[in-house]
């Protein structure tokens, strides 16, 4: 039985809006005006013949002239003295650290070109986020500061040192306060440098300030257990996960690690063992995590508190004071009852988390977890995470101090409060009263711009350092390139200013490791240090988990939560809003990175913008269209921002992304979207992400650049296949299309032999969370151009791999019997289910693109790949028209030298990030996923040189390598023992649109959802 369940890519497709239908008729957004030429005066007049002859004459002449050209002189400059470890043309890999995660940096001829996961890394096990993949581009950003700055004018290091030292001496003598504002620092050596600085200047204080902070959790743990830590969570140990707005697969604390853990209980291996975790998610806007949940219940921000109290009541059997009934949200009330039942049943293997930054809420969550016995199993307080240590109240106090004129010197390291603090004006006015303000920012940013001086920091790929993101996990940073600009590491600057004896920061780090850290990993001396520089990290034995009993009095907590809820409940005429971070930009610090800006949001598929997510029913009610600019007012601040109809958004609420609307970040990030940080509010000493706002239409329409609307699935039902866990247990092949009869179309197709290798891929839809890391990894590996907002709107994005997001209606697990005619009558868009599907060239054995190419530019290889010879392509675009998967991309422009595109591949500096083993493509040619053929060839060559057969795993494609969920497996199908062969043998395997007879090389595995019938 095949599912009749209807999937849709977006509301346009569901509603079949006229615009969508019209656009969908064409493969490309703007049809070529061939008809105008044919019907108009085009061919009728007398001139065309003459023009033709002229053109012919000119053409022949031009070609003859071109033929006469002398040999173009290419200069070749060898090294004067070649560094011993470099062989031109061979990549070197160095271990380093990105945000606490051990990584490998691939360098060619001394310049880093790609960041890859360290396979032994404890956080990602080789997986990396989109942000980490994109970080290498920042290194070559031409908008980085190229020298120190004082009063917005260029300055020298020596002068700056003298100036700052003099100022600090004077300030020390005056005895006034010195403040060091940093985003959370996890590096032990940096912390030691700061400690030294404080010793040198006793009035100095170090304040951690995170734009998006976790103070609520840390304070909550302090109050509950006397341990002010951010716990380490283990999603892989949890059978039942209940999350209240914690987007742990997208942005919450350590998403790469959590994705890896989360899929442990949902991937093929786990399913084959008939084991699958259950994930229930309560949230306001549809997040990546919510879209992956087995059951997702939209709630308003004001309902979160009562929901948690109800859950506590249901689990404990007690009743906390106050009315916590969810009278307006029956679905949520039922879901809470169900969640409580399941959590209790899974006691000891359960986990409840909340994304809220409210201390009271987190205390209540701790109480629930304590009841469920989560401490020591799914939550570890003894080996905590150090990833966030920001303290909201300390920073608020600092802003007050500045305004009182008590601070004489302030240093900002990786902190930009003028942009991301909710009361930006207070920071600006305060800074005016500060005698010496110094920023270490490597870019000119909103804060650096009004500081006395900027001492630009190195990019992390130019730095020495270390990191300690998780308790007992120490990683090392080593530079992989000489500083590109005249910058200096912030730690070095601090050492100089505090008059330290250390020669440079390298010596300091080295001493710190020699004296304290190396021994933790059982290493000593020079040899130990060298080992560390090869392995990248050391790991201490984990501390034994203590037992924690929760004794905090909950009555006042409950009251605080309910008060908060009441304050959030919107009166008529206003809406509740929730702020969230996007997977790509997070807090907006790296807004100047074009790879991140062009990465479509996993859920909305919008690029280059933020917007207000509105529920489709509210859109109808309020009379908005997609892209209508509305004025949003809250907390005395107003912004005008386009709205987007987002299924799954709780009714009566809007969601807004932070991290946009930078004004001083560089040409890429400036004025992209609107700044929503001022919508934050301070409550009980912590920053809150929700509130009440009023909406007013402005009458303008600002179209959004969405990638999701670019194709339609034409009502086909063999693209996404989905089963419930119950069905799967009964029959592992459920809904994979096994039972269907497939017609063979082998009539006129040549049968391809794969005598040597047969490169295929398996993608597990149940593991893919849609995070988008593969998209950026692919761009970095294959020199994929960035096209910008306008071009995306014209459907000209160039990504070789995209993650399709399909919606379907919640069918309550009854087998998807929502028929098409029923959908038209449904108006409840709250309960949508989402399936993500990475879509790339399927390397079909019977590829439709190959047969229509008039110049044989795309042909089949004996290794099962669909080759694309760019230099042969003449740009007919027939192949793209004929591709049922819509994965071919056309170069509409010379992105590498067209002045209309401020493209990273044409800038003198960022061009250094290009992979020299892959060409950049010319205008007028088609391109598409090559299955990283450069890696396949390199893998084969390595095996040949080493005189051994190619092993499974020798070749890893870029998307596979970076995937934190291991959802993508690529390999040789001719080898029956290869990982991919085994994966494809899974009963869940199906091929997209296999009824067309294209015989794709990429197999997908049916999405399985753990839905129970008892669910409301």
């Amino acid at each position, binding site marked *: 039985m095949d599912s009749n369940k209807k999937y849709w890519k977006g509301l346009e497709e569901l509603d079949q809006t006229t615009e969508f239908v019209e656009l969908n008729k064409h493969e490309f957004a703007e049809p070529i005006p061939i008809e105008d030429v044919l019907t108009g005066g085009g061919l009728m007049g007398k001139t065309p013949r003459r023009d033709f002859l002229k053109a012919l004459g000119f053409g022949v002449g031009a070609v003859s002239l071109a033929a006469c050209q002398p040999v173009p002189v290419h200069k070749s400059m*060898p090294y004067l*003295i070649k560094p011993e470890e470099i062989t031109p043309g061979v990549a070197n890999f160095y271990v380093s650290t990105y945000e606490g995660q051990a990584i490998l940096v691939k360098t060619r001829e001394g310049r880093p070109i790609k960041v890859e996961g360290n396979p032994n890394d404890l956080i990602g096990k080789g997986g990396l986020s989109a942000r980490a993949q994109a970080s290498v581009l920042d290194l070559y950003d031409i908008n980085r500061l190229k020298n120190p700055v004082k009063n917005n004018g260029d300055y020298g290091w020596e002068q700056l040192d003298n100036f700052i030292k003099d100022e600090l001496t004077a300030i020390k003598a005056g005895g006034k306060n010195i403040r060091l504002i940093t985003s959370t620092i996890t590096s032990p050596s940096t912390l030691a440098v700061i400690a030294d600085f404080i010793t040198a200047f006793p009035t100095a204080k170090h304040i951690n300030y995170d734009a998006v902070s976790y103070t609520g959790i840390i304070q909550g743990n302090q109050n509950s257990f006397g341990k002010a830590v951010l716990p380490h969570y283990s999603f892989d140990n949890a059978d039942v996960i209940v999350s209240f707005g914690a987007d742990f697969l997208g942005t919450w604390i350590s998403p790469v690690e959590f994705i890896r853990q989360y899929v442990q209980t949902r991937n093929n291996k786990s399913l084959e063992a008939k084991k699958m975790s259950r994930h229930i998610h309560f949230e306001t806007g549809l997040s990546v995590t919510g879209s992956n949940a087995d059951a997702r219940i939209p709630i308003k921000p004001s309902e979160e508190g009562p929901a948690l109290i109800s859950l506590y009541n249901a689990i404990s059997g007690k009743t906390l004071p106050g009315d916590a009934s969810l009278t307006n949200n029956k679905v949520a009330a039922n879901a809470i009852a169900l969640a409580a039942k399941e959590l209790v049943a899974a006691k000891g293997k359960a986990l409840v988390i909340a994304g809220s930054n409210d201390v009271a809420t987190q205390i209540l969550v701790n109480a629930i977890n304590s009841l469920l016995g989560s401490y020591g199993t799914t939550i570890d307080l003894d080996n905590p995470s150090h990833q966030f240590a920001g303290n909201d109240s300390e920073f608020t106090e600092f802003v007050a101090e500045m305004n009182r004129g008590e601070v004489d010197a302030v240093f900002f390291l990786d902190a930009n409060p003028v942009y991301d603090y909710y009361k930006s004006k207070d920071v600006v006015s305060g800074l005016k009263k500060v005698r010496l303000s110094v920023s270490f920012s490597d870019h000119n940013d909103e804060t650096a711009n009004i500081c006395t001086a900027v001492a630009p920091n190195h990019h992390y790929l130019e730095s020495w350092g270390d990191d300690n993101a998780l308790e007992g996990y120490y990683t090392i940073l080593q530079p992989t390139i000489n500083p590109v600009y005249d910058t200096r590491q912030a730690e070095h600057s601090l050492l100089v200013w505090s008059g330290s004896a250390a020669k440079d920061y390298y010596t300091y780090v080295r001493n710190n490791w020699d004296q304290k850290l190396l021994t933790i990993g059982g290493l000593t001396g020079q040899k130990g240090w060298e080992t560390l520089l090869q392995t990248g990290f050391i790991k201490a034995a984990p501390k034994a988990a203590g037992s924690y009993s929760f004794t905090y009095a909950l009555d006042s907590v409950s009251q605080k939560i309910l008060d908060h809820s009441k304050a959030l409940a919107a009166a008529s005429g206003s809406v509740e809003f929730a702020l969230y971070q996007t997977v790509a930009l997070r807090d907006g610090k790296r807004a100047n990175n074009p790879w991140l800006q062009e990465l479509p949001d996993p859920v909305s598929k919008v690029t280059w913008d933020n917007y207000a997510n509105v529920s489709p029913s509210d859109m109808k009610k309020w009379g908005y269209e997609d892209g209508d600019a509305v004025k949003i007012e809250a907390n005395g601040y107003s912004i005008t921002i386009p709205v987007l109809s987002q299924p799954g958004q709780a009714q009566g609420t809007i969601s807004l992304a932070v991290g946009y609307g930078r004004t001083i970040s560089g040409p890429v990030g400036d004025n992209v979207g609107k700044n929503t940080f001022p919508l934050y509010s301070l409550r009980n000493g912590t920053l809150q992400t929700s509130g009440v706002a009023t909406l007013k239409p402005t009458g303008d329409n600002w179209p959004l650049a969405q990638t999701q609307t670019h194709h339609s699935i034409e009502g086909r039902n063999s693209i996404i296949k989905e089963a419930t866990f119950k069905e799967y247990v009964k029959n592992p092949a459920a809904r994979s299309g096994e039972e269907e009869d497939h017609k063979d179309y082998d009539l006129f197709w040549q049968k391809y032999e794969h*005598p040597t290798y047969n490169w295929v891929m398996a993608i597990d839809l149940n593991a893919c969370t849609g995070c988008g890391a593969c998209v950026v990894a692919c761009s970095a590996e294959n020199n994929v151009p960035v096209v910008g907002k306008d071009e995306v709107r014209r459907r000209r994005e160039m990504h070789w791999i995209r993650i399709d997001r399909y919606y379907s209606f919640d069918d309550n697990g009854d087998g998807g019997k929502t028929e098409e005619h029923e959908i038209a009558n449904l108006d409840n868009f709250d309960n949508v289910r989402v399936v993500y599907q990475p879509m790339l060239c399927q390397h079909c054995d019977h590829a439709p693109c190959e047969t229509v190419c008039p110049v044989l530019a795309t042909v089949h290889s*004996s290794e099962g790949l669909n080759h*694309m010879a760019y230099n042969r392509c003449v740009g007919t675009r027939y192949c793209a028209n004929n591709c049922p998967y819509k994965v071919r991309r056309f170069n509409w422009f010379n992105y590498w030298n067209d002045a209309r595109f401020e493209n990273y591949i044409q800038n003198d500096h960022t061009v250094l990030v290009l992979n020299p083993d892959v060409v950049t493509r010319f205008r007028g040619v088609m391109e598409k996923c090559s299955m990283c053929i450069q890696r396949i060839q390199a893998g084969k060559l390595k095996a*040949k040189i080493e*005189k051994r057969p190619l092993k499974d795993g020798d070749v890893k494609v870029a998307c596979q390598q970076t995937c934190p969920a291991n959802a993508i497996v690529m390999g040789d199908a001719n080898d029956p023992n290869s990982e991919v062969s085994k994966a494809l043998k899974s009963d869940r395997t199906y091929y997209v649109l296999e009824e067309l007879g294209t015989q794709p090389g990429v197999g997908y595995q049916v999405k399985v959802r753990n839905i129970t019938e008892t669910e409301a």
Partner: protein
Amino acid sequence: MRRLSLLFKQRSRSVLLAAVFVLFGTAAHAQGDAAKGEGIFKANCTTCHKIGTRVVGPALGPTITSETDDKWLTKWIENNQALIAAKDPKALAIYNQYNQAGMTVFGSLTDGDVANVLAYVRASWKTDPANPVNASKLPAVAPETGPGSLTIYALIAVIIIAFIIILVLNRVIGTLEKVLVKSEGILVTEAEVEAVPVDRFALIKKLAKNKKFVFFTLLVGTLALGSWTWVTMWHTNVHQGYQPEQPIHFPHDLHAGAMKIDCQYCHFGAYKSKNASIPPLNVCMNCHKTVKTESPEIHKIYDALGYDPTTQKYDSTKSHPIQWVRIHNLPDFVYFNHSQHVKVAGLKCQTCHGPVQEMKEVYQYSPLTMKWCIQCHKRTDVNMKGNAYYEKMEAVHDLIKAGKPVTEAAMGGIECGKCHY
């Protein structure tokens, strides 16, 4: 007593004998055999020393001539380490002057050998051109120039004069003929000739009327022009034979040919990388720190490195890269890997680059067209011997079983994506 005198006698005899030996020996030192010394010098010293110029160690001519204490010199040459260890002030000074780089210990040389060497060095210093004494004595030797430019100009002038003479003579002959004809009265006939005007284009007009001829001419013309166009187009951007002038006149025929240096000693990338790579200058310096140090071409290397041959120090502030002109330019859209061909296939460099060992200046030997690549891939058998990589490839086995040759093409080596990505 007797015993004592006997003892004295014996002793005195040996002492005497020793004294005679010593005297003789010293005399021999002073008169050391320069001819013998030359052989010893060339066998042992030239790695680090020259007579007139400083190499690794000091220039020996002036040093040894100015140092008259031969005993000390002998000690130094035979075992300089011992002198340094004994903290001999002179030895220490030299040791420190040369960055504490110790000289090789020549324990195998006898005192006589050393004397011979010293004699040779002193003798040859006397005639060495670097010796300032000689420089003042000898007149500057004119550099050898081969056929001078003066000779060439003279030759050209002679040829031009010869031409002028021929022209003048012709003129004279013409005038004389006219005079002769006039005097004989033959000029009368001229009028007749003018009366019957000859149609000079008659033949062409006649031929133009011949359709067969016109057709033939047009056909030949079209074919000629067509094939010329074809060949020109076909060879557009094919630069076979391209031989640009390089910033340093590096003779491959000398290095790879006469000296038989392995190609990959310098082009080390060829067996492990996609680039064969132009050698960095430190590879040149492996030899040219001591070989041909006086050559102006070698000095281009020194300049580029900021290397001072007299002090043997590198100054990176003066260094600048050498801009070689690339000869083999594959288009950007082709991926070519040297190691695949050199290391795996075991091809000789000459297969594609031609007889480099005979080239004074390198030129592009092969056309580097796709046709040329593919032809080779179709014709050449894959070198699989002893490479376990090919063991697992069924296709290869099938072909071998069937007795067919295994070419690169048979293994998919001419598919687009193998080189174009």
